[in-house]
């Protein structure tokens, strides 16, 4: 009972700190609320349509015109110009007016009539893989289509239309893009990014709060307060405000953001909640462990923001983890985002149950446990060093950790410290008596 009361006291105190600090609020409230909307807006068109290409028709026959017509009629590619020769076409690529060239060689129909294979030239600008994909898929589709016509009309014509159709395609096939039917970019990228935003903003927010308290309490991450003496209570008390806030934010992402931008929503509500609890907890405890490196409130922005990009790649969502070197695969297990992003994609896009994502779910709970213990150890060390500092007689040349890192305001700090030391000495007897 007493410990619950203690945790509640720490909780309210931390809540006060958080809501008074605009810098922290930007990261833990504004960014998680607005960034998903901004990001979804960027990718809202999902797919690339009408990639501009130029045609070089050296053959200029009925068949070559039919091929170009079919390419132009496809949704992904648009023929913006017809050029007389390759030089002209290359010039358009250089100016980035077009991203590809389709070339039909001059002997095209002649070769076909002589029953020889003839190539259709496709030149792609490689600045974006999506252009390459659009152009290549379209031209391949058209060539297959025309091939079948040639095959049936010239060589293996049947007696009925149905027989022609079977000759065109002795075995039919079907292609199903599971979980992302239109192969959209938003449906692929946004769901994992939502989880990454949760982790990164938590790391930033908690790191900033820790830096803040170091600045306020002269290098110590905990205030000199009777209530802050049990590491487990501190960790739980500090985690609670973030946990409740992020549970709400996660639900906001799962429901509001997904619905507004029509992202995949196959997930079950209960599965999501059960999954996101260990995810948020492990992020919070990891943030507490990492914040031991943060001495100034702005430090964490410098340390953590750029890590978002490598973490996205470590998750194996954009770069298949099957082809990742083992070393990086092991490293990726250290971050909750890896399990969190994969698990979330499986829940929301593929409709997985908790049983299907056992690996991710267990991984997150293990991380929660490990980081919780590490966070407790970190705070225990802080308490011990705080008490040690207080018990020692004051010595201005003593090499405090924070002083190393704050040389420029040495003078003011030392003065402040002297004043604080006076206050501390009077409280010294009290704290030694109540020491655990």
């Amino acid at each position, binding site marked *: 009972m007493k410990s619950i009361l203690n945790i509640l006291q720490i909780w309210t105190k931390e809540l006060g700190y958080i809501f008074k600090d605009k810098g922290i609020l930007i990261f833990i409230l504004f960014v998680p609320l607005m960034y998903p909307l901004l990001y979804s807006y960027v990718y809202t068109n999902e797919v690339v349509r009408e990639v501009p290409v130029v045609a070089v028709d050296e053959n200029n026959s009925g068949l070559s015109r039919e091929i170009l017509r079919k390419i132009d009629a496809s949704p992904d590619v648009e023929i913006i110009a017809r050029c007389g020769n390759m030089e002209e076409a290359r010039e358009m690529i250089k100016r980035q007016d077009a991203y590809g060239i389709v070339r039909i060689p001059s002997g095209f129909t002649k070769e076909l009539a002589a029953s020889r294979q003839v190539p259709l030239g496709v030149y792609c600008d490689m600045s974006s893989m999506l252009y390459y994909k659009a152009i290549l898929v379209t031209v391949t589709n058209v060539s297959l289509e025309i091939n079948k016509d040639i095959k049936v009309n010239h060589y293996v014509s049947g007696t009925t239309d149905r027989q022609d159709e079977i000759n065109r395609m002795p075995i039919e096939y079907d292609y199903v893009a599971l979980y992302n039917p239109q192969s959209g970019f938003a449906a*692929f990228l946004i769901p994992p990014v939502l989880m990454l935003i949760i982790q990164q903003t938590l790391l930033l927010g908690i790191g900033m709060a820790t830096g803040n308290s170091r600045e306020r309490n002269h290098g110590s991450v905990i205030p000199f307060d009777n209530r802050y003496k049990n590491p487990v209570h501190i960790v739980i008390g500090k985690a609670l405000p973030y946990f409740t806030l992020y549970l709400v934010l996660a639900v906001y992402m799962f429901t509001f953001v997904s619905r507004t931008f029509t992202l995949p929503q196959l997930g079950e509500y209960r599965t999501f909640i059960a999954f996101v609890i260990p995810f948020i907890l492990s992020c919070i405890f990891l943030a507490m462990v990492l914040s031991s490196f943060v001495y100034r409130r702005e430090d964490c*922005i410098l340390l953590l923001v*750029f890590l978002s*990009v490598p973490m996205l790649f470590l998750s194996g969502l954009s770069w298949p983890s*099957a082809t990742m070197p083992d070393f990086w695969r092991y490293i990726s297990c250290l971050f909750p985002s890896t399990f969190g992003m994969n698990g979330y994609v499986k829940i929301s896009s593929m409709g997985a149950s908790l049983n299907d994502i056992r690996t991710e779910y267990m991984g997150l709970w293990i991380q929660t446990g490990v980081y919780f213990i590490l966070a407790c150890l970190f705070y225990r060390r802080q308490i011990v060093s705080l008490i040690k500092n207080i018990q020692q007689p004051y010595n201005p040349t003593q090499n405090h950790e924070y002083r190393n890192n704050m040389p420029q305001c040495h003078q003011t700090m030392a003065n402040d410290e002297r004043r604080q030391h006076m206050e501390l000495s009077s409280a010294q007897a009290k704290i030694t008596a109540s020491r655990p």
Partner: protein
Amino acid sequence: MTVYQRIKSIFGRELRMYSRRPLFMFCMVVAPVLCVVFFTTLMNKGLPTALPAGIVDEDNTNISRTIVRTIDALEETDMIRSYPSFGEARKAMLRGEIYAFFYIPSGTTEQAIANRQPKISFYTNEAYFVAGSLLMKDLRTASELSGLALTRETLYAKGATEADAMAIIRPITVETHPIGNPTLDYGVYLNNIIVPGIFILLIMLSTSYTIGIEWKYGNQKRLYALAGESSAVALAGKLLPQTILFSLMFIFCDVCFYKILGYPCRSGIWPMIVLGIVTVVASQAFGVFLFGLFTGQMRVAMCLCSLWGILSFSLAGFTYPVMAMSPVLQWLSWLFPLRHYYLIYVNQALNGNPVTYVWASVAAMLCFVLLPFLVLPKYRSAFLKYKYQP
């Protein structure tokens, strides 16, 4: 004191500050090097090959087994195992064991022989975009081939040679020429932009951090006096060490990419090094501009720099083309240094064209460099009046 001496003394003051805190060295040296190492080793395989796929063969005849062998022989697919039913394969896909599977229903061979046009199907997991797209390409080829294999057998039976048969089955072939990246190496495609993107992010953040720290520690007036009451001298002296360090990082990155790993670089390495240095100065200038715009509010400036840096990965348009975004964003993309870096890189290293084709981006980069002059008066009042707010 001359301007040169003032800059020199501020320069030295700056270096002493770096030496006292490991954070600076981490951001300016360790993090960039780590990023280069991370991304190049992560994608050292180039185009992902041997992606795991599965098969559900309910037919189990020699024709269906031919299809399985065909798929396995394709470069990007590694047929790891077969599953007894559709449901099992779907579960395996959920667990992440396979990215795609092929489904051959029972009776396929029988129907094909009886000319009844059976249907086979394949499923790819497009929630994993790259893996899904690559496997889609392979499995489509295999599906086409399986149908054509039947026709080919018929033609052989009629006495056609292989060349004859191929001319009948596939009279028109598609010959692709990927300009500049012939091996379709994903590492070339992604690393060339992601690593500079991270550099730009780090440059902008450390610019606003090191400037802001003067106000935070209340040293801004001392710096101003040291610079002979000139904001331009103060900022130049302060940022010059970072310009040098980050330029060295860009050179390291260019040497790694174009000399050691042999990424395509048709323009030669020098234009890329020049581009790198211009990018460093442009990003620093942009950081100075943002900081000045908000009259020295370190927090706001750093938040904006993070937002800008992270957003530039999307708006540079190298994964998802800017062309396909809404018009507002197309316009906005001009305000991101990474966007111009990307356009100039494509023009120079990838395609080896004369730089005049991207004059607009070069001009934009130079505009970034000139931005700080707009906010110098604001810096003056910030130096004299403004105090740090947490």
